[in-house]
């Protein structure tokens, strides 16, 4: 069940009293959120970006025998854009960003990040795959791409996406243990090859 904005505001207001709270820092304007009538909370763009260095790599090879971590560092470049400055996203270009907000999910909630229609109608697509698991804590990595035909300036601090929150039911109290936790910059990790895929690839 998706929770409405007034309920989100109530949860955020008492975050310090709860043992397993929902926290969004910097905290959104709760009064405004409460009367928004929506079922989501807007999130802003942070200052850190991760760009791909196209000239450094021929393709992304997830089954590489080399260390994936080393490869990722080789073909990405961090960029910091200060408040007041801008990042120009050209048509068909792609960059990883991060939310300005640090999110902490309680273990009984999950979230989905989506773009905002106002941006989408201009060709800016955000967060194609951002599910936020119970217990996650950190800034959310956003996949940002310009599918339009005109370059778009994006600025740290601007409202860029929205977070929908759901109740997560189940007895398990374990939170998200992924390596995406606890980061303030956008994160790109190697894709693990599981045994199932390995076996399928082996010669019979």
């Amino acid at each position, binding site marked *: 069940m998706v929770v409405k904005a007034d309920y989100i505001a109530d949860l955020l207001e008492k975050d310090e009293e709860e043992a397993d709270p929902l926290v969004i*820092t*910097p905290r959104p304007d709760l009064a405004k959120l409460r009367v928004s009538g929506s079922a989501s909370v807007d999130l802003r763009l942070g200052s850190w970006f991760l760009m791909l260095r196209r000239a450094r790599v021929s393709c992304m090879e997830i089954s590489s025998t080399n260390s994936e971590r080393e490869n990722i560092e080789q073909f990405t470049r961090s*960029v910091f854009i200060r408040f007041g400055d801008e990042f120009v996203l050209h048509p068909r270009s792609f960059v990883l960003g991060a939310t300005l907000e*640090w999110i902490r999910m309680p273990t009984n909630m999950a979230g989905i990040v989506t773009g905002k229609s106002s941006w989408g109608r201009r060709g800016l697509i955000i967060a194609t795959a951002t599910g936020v698991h119970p217990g996650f*804590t950190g800034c959310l990595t956003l996949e940002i791409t310009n599918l339009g035909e005109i370059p778009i300036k994006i600025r740290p601090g601007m409202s860029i996406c929205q977070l929908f929150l759901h109740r997560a039911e189940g007895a398990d109290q374990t*939170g998200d243990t992924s*390596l995406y*936790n606890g980061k303030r910059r956008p994160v790109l990790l190697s894709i693990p090859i599981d045994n199932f895929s390995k076996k399928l690839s082996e010669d019979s």
Partner: protein
Amino acid sequence: MTSQYSIRRVDAVLKVIGQLKSVDFPYEHSKHALEKVESHFQKLKLDIERSLKSDSPDLSRNTCAEALEQTFVFLPILGFILRSTDIGNAFELHGPLLRLARTLLGDNIKLIISSEWEYSPYTYLPIPQLDQFVLIGLPSPESANPLVFPLAGHELGHTLWRYSGHATHIKPAIAEGIINDIKSNRWDEYVKTFPSQERDRSTYGDHPTDMEMIAPASAWAERQAEEVFCDLIGLRLFGKAYIHALTYFLAPGFRTRLPHYPRLSVRFRCLSDACHEYGINKPEQFADIAAVAEVQSDPTNVEKFMVSLADTALDRSTTTLMQLARHAAEDAGIKLPDDEEIDHVVETQFKKGVPARGQSGLANILNAGWRAFQDKDMSTANPNITNYEDFLKELVLKSIEVFEIENRTAN
């Protein structure tokens, strides 16, 4: 011909500056500094060109020599500015530290934080062409480690030492103290160290050569006093977090004694005394680092005597230094870190894995970082985190950014 060499060298520097201007600057002050250096070198070039037209070989030679000297001075600064854009730095520190620097030193201060390839936090002393700029370098491996940020307080102290004129005021007091010390307590030692000096004890100090004889001791004592003052500024700005950061950085101490640096035992004793004086609870792990013996490498008898005089002179100055640092912070309206706020951050925010918010100062955040770092319950409070220390650093850096956002958006 050599004048043409000079023009080409200045052109080469200007070309480098032109290239540096195209890098991504995380904040405007690095770019402003670069523009100032560029203007300076454009003027040097103009001066050389004018001197060539003047028919005065002396003028031309001097102008070219000036340009050469300035190239030596500014090239390391250009490197410093370039490293200030290194993506490995914690750019989040700039806003909050700038605010603190302006409170302490004046509203016009501009700040550049860079990463150093010397393993020591560093500051460039004020340079006329970069008036109002404070340049602070943190060692490259630690430049994004928020736990060492309190050491920047020490570096701000060096600028304050000059801006406030303490260096000028303390110089005669130190020299006079050394003369009196020799007359009253060390006369036999003095005569033994300088047997060829036939001086009368009662008139010792009246002759200008007496001052010249003790000049090394006096200069070392001044440098030592500056270092202790800077420690005290670091303590007054960042409280216990400064001591933790200094301990982290210097432990287990140096085996070699440098005469112009105070002994670590003295530095930590001053910090301990100042904790009492300023009302700061002392951290527990004080003793380890203060116990390391520092030995001068092969000193002559004269050097030993001079160092001993400098050390005694410093001992006499510590109370004054403590008061100077205290007044500097109080006059600027800088409060001590607030233990209640720090506890609140650790218990209600860091332990829940979220950054601090609503803080009244950078010092509270850095102290909360250290308290959490030393709290064994913290990692169990965040069981899903694989690398707890990295996580804590991220939390502290995000807290610093949140502090900046809250300041920018207040009212």
